[in-house]
């Protein structure tokens, strides 16, 4: 019995001329179409991820939050944290740019995949860092409320509305609600992010694992 694959090869090569034929003009038109490769999607989504948290500061409510930190006595700490945060963000953007430029369709399949995954993991680390910062900020607010002896002045408006509640109890309620909001908010953002990316890179990761297993 002849090698089955040889039979297949013979058949495959016999059909060489039965493929569809596109004309010169049809191919020419394709040059100007937009790519929808995952590399392009990674770039678009990453830019959004880098930009969005910072665009939030343009909202008046976010700008006013500094006053809120000041009242809690956290102003200096928040300023220092913000400076550190921007330095780290810049570092991440630089790393992302460097790795992104290295992606080339001319590499072999394995190199191409691992470069895409590396680029992506830079953004993943950035997201983990950002989420930790959000959680840290909420934690700081909780500590700030705890250390604040004069909660009545800081939240004058709130106290007026809730006169029946003792300041001690109000403090506890505020601390708990801040802590819960912080955790839910971080978990929600993280959940959305990892779902989105899980979907985008599912095929790539599977193929990468398949390729790696070949070399075991």
């Amino acid at each position, binding site marked *: 019995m002849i090698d*089955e694959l040889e*039979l*297949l090869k013979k058949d495959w090569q016999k059909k060489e001329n039965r493929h*569809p034929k596109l004309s010169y003009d049809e191919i020419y038109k394709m040059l100007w*179409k937009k790519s929808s*490769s995952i590399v392009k*999607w990674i770039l678009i989504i990453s830019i959004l991820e880098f930009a969005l948290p910072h665009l939030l500061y343009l909202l008046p409510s976010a700008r006013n939050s500094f006053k809120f930190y000041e009242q809690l006595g956290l102003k200096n700490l928040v300023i220092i944290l913000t400076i550190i945060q921007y330095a780290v963000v810049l570092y991440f953007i630089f790393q992302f740019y460097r790795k992104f430029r290295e992606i080339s369709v001319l590499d072999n*399949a394995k190199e191409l995949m691992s470069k895409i995954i590396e680029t992506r993991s830079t953004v993943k680390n950035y997201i983990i860092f950002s989420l930790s910062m959000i959680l840290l900020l909420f934690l700081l607010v909780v500590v700030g409320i705890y250390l604040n002896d004069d909660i009545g002045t800081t939240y004058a408006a709130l106290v007026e509305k809730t006169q029946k509640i003792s300041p001690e109890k109000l403090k506890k309620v505020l601390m708990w609600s801040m802590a819960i909001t912080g955790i839910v908010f971080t978990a929600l953002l993280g959940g959305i992010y990892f779902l989105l990316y899980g979907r985008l890179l599912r095929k790539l990761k599977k*193929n990468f694992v398949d390729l790696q297993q070949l070399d075991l």
Partner: protein
Amino acid sequence: MHKELEHKFVTELENNQNIVHKVCTLYTNNRDAHNDLFQEITIQLWKAYPKFRGESKFSTWMYRVALNTAITLYRKNKRSIPTQDYESVIFKVQADEYDETEEQQLRLMYTAVRQLGDIDKALVFLYLEDKDYAEIAETLGITEVNARVKMNRIKTRLKTILNP
């Protein structure tokens, strides 16, 4: 200058378009997706064309870009639903060209090949295109030994499909 480059590229691609069609046939299962992938490969080839220095043949260079696009860069278009009626010419096996056993064998093998994973498909594709193991290994980024081992495993699997 740019116009010249465009003309040169489109002409070369027009003459070698079979390679892209074959990759599209293996990696998609309906006409819309075939055209979609063909377009994406064309875009990737065109983007990389300035880096093509003619050190290798245009066709050799195309294999790498086309496979990389199909395996890694291409995202399946959601709009394209697999259609049952679509059967590419490649997979059509006609009785008058073969005896009955051969016809049956080919049918089974094409079905088996289409069910392989993306990486295995790439291996089989390059093999069917008569590439040597050095080139197969180089395109995928694995060692030549492993390319051989893997190919032998696929052969064995095809044998079991044909002779259960």
